[in-house]
């Protein structure tokens, strides 16, 4: 998926000003453009852009998908920043090396010239280098000055044009060349050494650059691995969490089903017990009623019998005719006696009637049971 720059994003928005936010969000998701990038490109607040982004893509903001997205985006951003840093580091080192470049180039040239002068590059190169030396302005100037001085001296002494003057001129030229050659050679060597030093420094800088960029590269290489590792860890954890949720749900479901059976059994059992108890209570109540009634009736009967049994016998009043006869006889006797006594003036008898003694046995009040 290509990396879009802020400019790309801005251009796109300029070309599509009326597109609804949801569609923008979906396109951004499909093309790997993060809310952060959009925020940086457009200047809108990150929270606002993220909210629209999530809404347009049906992202709740939590869960694996947003996490992966954040990880991926973070990895891409980090990689982009590292690449940018590497570029900056390269530029800085390049600039540093550019400061050394003239010295390195001159040193290289001086090294070549010195090598040529020394003959290390072959006779042709030496010849050419020496000719070049001879024609160098410095040597020519020095020689000219020396010749002028010699000629002036010779002119002053009147030896101008003489053999000595010519000899001197020749010796002067040779001496001048030899003396200045050594100087030149040494100076060239100095420049060459300076170039060598610059090159050494440059090499060191490049070594540092290599180290720095290697470090950055190593870090950048670790990012995908870290992101992948994080994602793998999250996915594995998600799997474990899902498994745990399934296990919990399964256990809860199993418990509920078991409870359902248990509960229904209890309901049936309790209902049966209640109804059975009702039946037994009703039957026991009925039985007790009958027993109580039997007891009542029994008591009633026995109390009737007891009442009757405790009633005294109504004794028939036996007649007391003897007594009556006795009384009559007594009365008659009394009359007779009275009659006779009237004649004989006898007092009336005050004796009790004979019944209480004479008829006592017949009027004992003999009870029915000989009481």
């Amino acid at each position, binding site marked *: 998926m290509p990396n879009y720059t802020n400019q790309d994003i801005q251009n796109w928005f300029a070309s599509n000003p009326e597109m609804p936010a949801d569609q923008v969000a979906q396109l951004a998701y499909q093309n790997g453009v993060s809310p952060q990038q959009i925020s940086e490109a457009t200047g809108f607040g990150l929270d606002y852009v993220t909210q629209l982004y999530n809404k347009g893509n049906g992202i709740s903001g939590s869960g694996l998908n947003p996490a992966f997205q954040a990880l991926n985006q973070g990895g891409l951003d980090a990689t982009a920043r590292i690449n940018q840093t590497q570029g900056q580091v390269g530029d800085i080192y390049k600039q540093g090396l550019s400061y050394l470049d003239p010295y390195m180039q001159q040193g290289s040239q001086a090294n070549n010239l010195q090598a040529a002068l020394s003959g290390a590059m072959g006779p042709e190169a030496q010849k050419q280098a020496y000719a070049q030396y001879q024609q160098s302005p410095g040597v020519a100037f020095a020689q000219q000055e020396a010749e002028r001085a010699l000629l002036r001296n010779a002119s002053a002494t009147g030896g101008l044009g003489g053999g000595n003057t010519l000899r001197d001129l020749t010796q002067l030229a040779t001496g001048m060349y030899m003396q200045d050659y050594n100087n030149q050679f040494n100076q060239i060597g100095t420049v060459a050494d300076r170039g060598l030093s610059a090159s050494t420094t440059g090499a060191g800088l490049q070594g540092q650059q290599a180290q720095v960029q290697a470090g950055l590269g190593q870090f950048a290489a670790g990012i995908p691995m870290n992101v992948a590792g994080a994602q793998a860890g999250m996915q594995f954890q998600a799997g474990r969490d899902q498994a745990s949720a399934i296990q919990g749900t399964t256990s809860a479901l199993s418990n509920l089903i078991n409870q359902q*059976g248990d509960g229904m059994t209890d309901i049936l059992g309790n209902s049966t017990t209640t109804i059975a108890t009702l*039946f037994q209570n009703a039957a026991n109540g009925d039985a007790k009623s009958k027993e109580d009634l039997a007891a009542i009736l029994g008591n009633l009967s026995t109390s009737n019998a007891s009442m009757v049994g405790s009633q005294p016998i109504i004794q028939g009043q036996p*007649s007391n*005719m003897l007594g009556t006869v006795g009384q009559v006889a007594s009365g008659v006797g009394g009359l007779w006696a009275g009659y006779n006594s009237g004649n004989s003036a006898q007092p009336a008898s005050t004796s009790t009637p004979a019944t209480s003694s004479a008829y006592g046995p017949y009027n004992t009040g003999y009870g029915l049971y000989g009481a």
Partner: protein
Amino acid sequence: MAVATSTALLAGAAATGAAAIGDSMSNKAAIKSAEKQKAASQAFIEKQIAQARSDIFKLFPEAQKSRQQGLDASLSLYNQAYPQMQETFQQGNVQAQQALINGLPQIQNAIMGRAVDMSGLQAVALQQPGGLTMPNSQLAPISDAGVGNA
């Protein structure tokens, strides 16, 4: 005078005799009456006792029958309920085991990252028990016992 006296004596004797006989008869009647009363009382008492026994021996068996009827009704209910209870309990337990078993492969799938099929986890409605047939709850009325009739 002597005749009158003899007559009076004879009359007196006759009267006395008659009175004595009358008294004797009257006494016997009284005794008989008392004995009659006693017998009647005895008979009444015995009748009452017989009535009482009869009532008791009619009502107590009826009471026993009522208790037995209640016991039989309870046993009948339990006889119907227990198999249903066992079946329902077992049904719930087996279904619970099945739910656990159904979950295991999905747990493995989730861990291994394979697709998870939740269709095995379903709500379960156990079969309702068949219900109870109520035994006869009509108890015999007391009038059927024929109490009061000796």
